C-alpha cells in the first residue's frame, strides 16, 4: 500500500495540461495523465485526433505550446529529444538500411564511454532479448517485417530509456505477425519494467496489450482507464461507439430514478439511478449484452422485436431487430448471437423474438453529453 502510494506520488511520466497548437488549429487540448513505473499505456483514437502529436510532444520532437512534461521526476518540457532519455519506435521503423541489425542496435552506444567489448556484449544481449540471435549480421532488407520491428525495438531499448514510445509499431505487419508480436512486446515490456506509451488506432491491440487506455477525440483525452473500464463503462457515446459497437436509443426521458421511457418503451437501468425525473438521456447497450428468447419471456426490460437482418460474422451472427411497439417509434436494435444460439432458437428473418436488455448492462448518457456518432 505504502509502496503504491509512493509510486502514485512520483509517476514515471507526468503530462500536465500539455497543449499543442498549429497556428489556430488545436492539435492537443490540455492533455493530462500519469503513467506509473512499468505501466503500459495505449493511446487510442480515430485518425487525426492527435495521438502522434501527443507522442511527439512527450518525446520532445514537437515543442508543446502549453503545459509540462515530467519524465522520471524531471521536468523535461524544454529539453530536446536527446536529453529526455526516451526510446522511440517509429511506424516505419527507420532502420538504417546500410547498417546490419547489430550495427543498428549499437548505433546509440558507440561513441560513448563504453569499451568495445562491453558494447558488443550489450548488443548481443539486446539481440537475444528480442529473439533475433543469429540474425545480427543481416541487413534490414534481409529481415522480415516482424524481425525489422524487433530490431527497431532493440535499438530503442539500447540506452535503457526511462520511457519507451511506440507509434503504431505493428501497423505495417500482417495480421498473424501482429498478434504474435503483441504478446512478445508485452512480455518484454513486463520483464524489463519499461514504462511504455503506445499509439494505435487498433482497438483490439489496445484492449489486449495495455494496462491502461487513453481514448482521444479531437485533441482531448475523453477517457482514461483500464481496458475493462473502457469497454464496460465507456464514458461517452463517442468512446462507446469507437470501441466495440453500441446500440443507442436517444431522447429517452427519466421517469423515476433508474427508469427511462421512450415512447411506449420503458426500461430500467442501474446506471441511471442518480438522474432526476424528467432528465433527457440516451440509453445504450452493447449488442452482445442483448439476450434473445423465443419462449415468450416476460418481465422487466423485455420487448418484442422482429428480425430484419442476419449478418454472418464468422464466429456468430449480428442481428438487426425492429422493436415491436405501439405508436410511431420503432427503434432498431442490434444483437450479437453465437451460431449455436441461432441454430437452437431457429432464428430467421421476419421472426418475432423477445429481447432482454439486462438493467445492469445498460449505459445511460445524460443529454448534456451531446449526441453520439
Amino acid at each position, binding site marked *: 500500500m505504502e509502496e503504491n502510494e509512493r509510486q502514485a506520488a512520483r509517476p514515471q511520466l507526468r503530462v500536465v495540461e500539455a497543449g499543442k497548437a498549429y497556428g489556430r488549429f488545436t492539435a492537443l487540448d490540455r492533455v493530462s495523465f500519469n503513467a506509473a513505473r*512499468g505501466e503500459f499505456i495505449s493511446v487510442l483514437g480515430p485518425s487525426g485526433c492527435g495521438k502522434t502529436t501527443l507522442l511527439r510532444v512527450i518525446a520532445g520532437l514537437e515543442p508543446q505550446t502549453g503545459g509540462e512534461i515530467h519524465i522520471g521526476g524531471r521536468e523535461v518540457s524544454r529539453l*530536446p529529444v536527446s536529453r529526455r532519455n526516451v526510446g522511440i519506435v*517509429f511506424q516505419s521503423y527507420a532502420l538504417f*538500411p546500410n547498417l546490419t541489425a547489430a550495427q543498428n542496435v549499437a548505433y546509440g552506444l558507440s561513441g560513448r564511454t563504453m569499451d568495445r567489448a562491453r558494447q558488443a556484449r550489450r548488443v548481443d544481449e539486446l539481440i537475444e532479448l528480442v529473439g533475433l540471435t543469429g540474425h545480427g549480421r543481416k*541487413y534490414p532488407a534481409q529481415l522480415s517485417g516482424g524481425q525489422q520491428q524487433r530490431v527497431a525495438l532493440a535499438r530503442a531499448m539500447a540506452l*535503457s530509456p526511462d520511457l519507451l514510445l511506440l507509434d503504431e509499431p505493428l501497423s505495417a505487419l500482417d495480421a498473424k505477425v501482429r498478434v504474435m508480436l503483441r504478446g512478445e512486446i508485452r512480455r518484454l515490456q513486463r*520483464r524489463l519494467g519499461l514504462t511504455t506509451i503506445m499509439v494505435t488506432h487498433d482497438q483490439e491491440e489496445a484492449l489486449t496489450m495495455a494496462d491502461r487506455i487513453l481514448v482521444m477525440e479531437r485533441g482531448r483525452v475523453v477517457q482514461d482507464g483500464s481496458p475493462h473500464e473502457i469497454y464496460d463503462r465507456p464514458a461517452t457515446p463517442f468512446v462507446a461507439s469507437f470501441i466495440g459497437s453500441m446500440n443507442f436509443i436517444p431522447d429517452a426521458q427519466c421517469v423515476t430514478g433508474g427508469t427511462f421511457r421512450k415512447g411506449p418503451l420503458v426500461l430500467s437501468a442501474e446506471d441511471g439511478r442518480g438522474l432526476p425525473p424528467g432528465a433527457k438521456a440516451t440509453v445504450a447497450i452493447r449488442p452482445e449484452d442483448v439476450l434473445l428468447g423465443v419462449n415468450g419471456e416476460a418481465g422487466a426490460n423485455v420487448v418484442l422485436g422482429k428480425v430484419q437482418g442476419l449478418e454472418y460474422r464468422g464466429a456468430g451472427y449480428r442481428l438487426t431487430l425492429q422493436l415491436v411497439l405501439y405508436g410511431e417509434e420503432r427503434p432498431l436494435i442490434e444483437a450479437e448471437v453465437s451460431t449455436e444460439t441461432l441454430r437452437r432458437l431457429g432464428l430467421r428473418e421476419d421472426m418475432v423474438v423477445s429481447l432482454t436488455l439486462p438493467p445492469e448492462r445498460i449505459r445511460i448518457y445524460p443529454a448534456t453529453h451531446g449526441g453520439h456518432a
Partner: protein
Amino acid sequence: MPESASVRIAAASRLPAAALDLEAWTRRALMLLVCLWMCVVVVLPLATLLSKSLADADGRFVGLDNFLHYFQNPSLSASLGHSLAVSLATTAISVSLGFAFAYGLTRTAIPGKGLFKTLALTPLFAPTLLNGIALVYLFGRKGLITRGFFGALPGLDVDLYGPLGIILAEAVYTFPQAVLILSVALGAADARLYEAAASLGASRLRTFLTVTLPSVRYGLVSAAFVCFILAFTDFGAPKVVGGGYNVLATDIYKQVIGQQNFVMGAVVSVVLLLPAVVAFIADRLVQRRQVALIAARSVPLAPRPNRLGDALMLAFVALVCLAITGFYATGLFASLVKVWPYDLSLGLGHYVFSGIGGGGWAAFANSLAMSALSALAGTVLTFASAYLIEKTRGLAPLRRSAYFLSLLPLALPGLVIGLAYIFFFNAPGWSILGVHLPNPFNFLYATMGILVLANVVHFYSVSFLTATTALKNLDPEFETVAQSMGVPFQRTFMRVTVPLCLPAILEIAMYYFVNSMATVSAVIFLYSADIPLASVAVANMDDAGDIAPACAMSMLIVGANLCVRILYGLATRGVRRRTQAWTKR
C-alpha cells in the same frame, strides 16, 4: 501493477547535457552560413552587376538611361531579336526530335536502347565551341559536305555562318537535355490509362492525343524551357559560327573584351538575364504541379512489339545517333588530319600546340585541375547545404530562403556570372554612407579560386536538386532516431546519409567535372594569363584561325570527360554492388 524488472540492463552513460544544445545551435549557424554564402556568391555579385547597368562609366547613377540607349540603338538591340529567334527555332527542333527519340526509347520495343541513349547523350560531354567547329568542318567553305566528301559526291553549299549555323549547333547541344527530360516524362506512364483507352475502343491516334500528350505536357513544357534557356544564353556556338549575326551572348563578349565597355556589357547581361529569369520562374511553377502528378500510384507501362512501328522508330533513332556520331567523328577526324582538305594523312600534329596561342597542354592541365577542384568543392557544398535545408526541423523561413537562393543560379547564364564576378571581386571596396569598406574577397581575383567558385555557382542548382531528391528519398525519421539516442547529427550524416546517397553524390561530382571542363562562358572573363584554360584556348585559337588545334583541344576535353564518365560508371557499379549487399536476400 507490472512486476519489477527481472532483467537489469546496464545503464549506458549519456552525452553531457551541454554538448547537445550545441547541436541545435550548430545547425542554425550552419544554415545561416549557407544563406550567407549564397548571398556572397550570388546575390551581391548580381546586385553589383545591376548597379553597374544603372550607372555611367564613372559610376554615377543614371537610372534607365543605358537601357534607353541600348533599345534606341538598332545595331545593339537587333541582337535581342536574333537571340530570341535562334533560341525558339532551336527549342522547336530539339523538343520535337527529342520527343520522338525519347518515345522510341521508352514506348517502343526497339533493340539497343542503352546504346542509343548513350550515343544521344554524347553532346553533354562536349564544349559548344566544338559543335560550331564540327559544323565548320561539315558545312564550312571547305567542309566535308560543302565539298561533297572531297569531290566524291556533288557538294551542298549552305550559308552556315549566321542563324543556320547557330541553330544547328544549339540543336545538337540541347537535344540530349530534351531527351533526358522527356524520357523521364514518357517513362512515367500509367498502363491503366492505356488499358482503359483500349477498352473504350480508342484509335492509336486518339489514344496518343488524349492520353500520351496530356500525361507528358509538364515534361514538354519543362524541356522547352530548358532548351530555350540553354540556347538563349550559350556563347560557344555563336562565337564560332555566328558570323555577322550578333546575338546577346556574343555582344556581351564584344562589349567587354573588344571595346572594354563594361557598362554596356552589364546592360546586355541584364537583357540576357531577364528572359532566363522568366523562363526559370515559369519552369519552377510547372514543376511544382508535376510533383503531384507523379506522386499518384501508377502501373508501369510495358511497351508491346509492333513490327512496322518499331522498324520505323528504329530507323529514326539509328539515324539520329548516326548523325550525332558522324558529327563528332568529323571533329575527331579533322583534328587528326594534317592539312584539311588537302593532305588527309593522319597524325597527332595538331595536338602539339607548339607556336600557337591559348596555352596548349598547360591549359588542358589547368582545366583538369580546375574541374577536379570544382567537382570536389561543388559536391561537398551542394550536398551539405541540401542536407541542412532538407533535414533540419523548424527554422522554416531560413530554410525557404536558403532553398530559393540555391535554385537561383539556375537562371544565371555563365557570361552573367563571369561579368558579375569581375565587378564584385575586382572591386577594391565600397563606400557605404561615407565609410570605406575594403573588399574582403578581393584576394580571389585572377586566381584559380575564382574560377572554381564561378563553376561551383554556375552548376550549383542542378546539383542541389539532385542532392535534394536523393535526400527526400531517405526516411525522415533517421535524424529523429539518431537524435533520440543522443548521437550527434554529423555522425549520422557521415555514417548513414552519405553512404545511402553515394550514387547521387557521384553523379553530382561527375556533373560538376564534365561541365567545368566544357564551359567557356563562365570562365572567359575570369581566367588570367598565367592560368590559361582549355575551353578558353579553344575560343582563342578559333579566333586566331587555328581551327585544327582548336578542334584538337576540344577533343582532349571530350576525351577527359568520357574518361570521367567511365570512371563514374565503374564507381557506381561498385557502389551498387555494395548496395546490393544491403538488399540481397
